[in-house]
């Protein structure tokens, strides 16, 4: 003959709540980690864009035109600044792999040189492919992230893998454009 003993529902409920709380807080910490990573990458991109904005000061002194004199050297300065700002090694990876889980790739680097009403675009793609062209008149050109080009500006976009909860790897991209006169202030 079986004797049934009284059960304890509070044990099961308590364990459920505990596990639910652990999962909820772990997910929240992960979200905050992703948000912090996003801010960190945005800061690094903005700083690297501004670092590459070396204008021709002699020309500025004569004509008061603000334009980036050498797009090729600006691109190299941008790459060097990005590598330093993200603390990347020679393989363009982060040594501790806590925020950035793998290789960082520069997908696009674009200079918008404004001279009067004309806008000339210098475009560096993935792998350093280069092209330049006259884009049109001032007031009609926008950067890929939607910002209206009002004066000489720099835009860049990078891609990188991010490791999330349970070591799931996600590929992320970050873009930023800065107006070198407004110094990145939006």
């Amino acid at each position: 003959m079986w004797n049934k003993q009284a059960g304890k529902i509070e044990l099961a409920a308590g364990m459920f709540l505990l596990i639910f709380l652990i999962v909820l807080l772990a997910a929240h910490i992960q979200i905050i980690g992703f948000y912090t990573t996003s801010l960190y990458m945005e800061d690094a991109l903005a700083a690297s864009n501004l670092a590459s904005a070396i204008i021709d000061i002699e020309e500025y002194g004569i004509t008061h035109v603000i334009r980036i004199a050498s797009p090729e050297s600006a691109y190299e300065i941008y790459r060097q600044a990005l590598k330093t700002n993200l603390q990347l090694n020679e393989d363009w990876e982060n040594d501790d792999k806590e925020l950035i889980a793998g290789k960082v790739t520069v997908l696009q680097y674009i200079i918008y040189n404004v001279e009067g009403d004309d806008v000339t675009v210098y475009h560096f793609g993935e792998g350093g492919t280069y092209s330049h062209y006259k884009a049109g008149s001032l007031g009609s050109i926008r950067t890929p992230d939607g910002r209206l080009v009002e004066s000489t500006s720099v835009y860049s976009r990078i891609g990188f893998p991010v490791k999330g909860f349970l070591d799931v790897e996600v590929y992320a991209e970050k873009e930023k454009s800065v107006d070198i006169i407004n110094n990145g202030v939006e």
Partner: protein
Amino acid sequence: MRQRNITVKKSSGSVTDVLSVVICMIAMSIIMMAYLNSIQLLNTKSEVSQLARKYILRMETVGYLTGSDKAWLTQELNTLGISDPDFSGTTMNEVGYGSPVILSIQGNINGKEAIWGGGIFAVVFGDKSHPFQEIRMSTAKN
């Protein structure tokens, strides 16, 4: 009206009746404290990054980290709980237009760590330092 006598019999209690609840409450408290500590560390690191951004922009306009800026930065880092920050590798002498300027901040962020003191219930939170390094590079626009 007829009165009825109702006799209430108390059954004997046991500490095991509330033991599971107490264990859950203690576990939840430990988890919440660990969570709050993690959030605080992330916030502090984020604020250090914002400080670095602010001072690298100043270094762009001047060409180096001035003595007064260094003192202000040290004070602001101390306010965040970072004592004795190290600025090795920072550009301390003025450079010309277009030359690289670097701001390097190394230090320790103080946090708490759960330490098992022995036994199931002996958990304490001890101090733990988390080393960090913040590097910003730009070019002088002076």
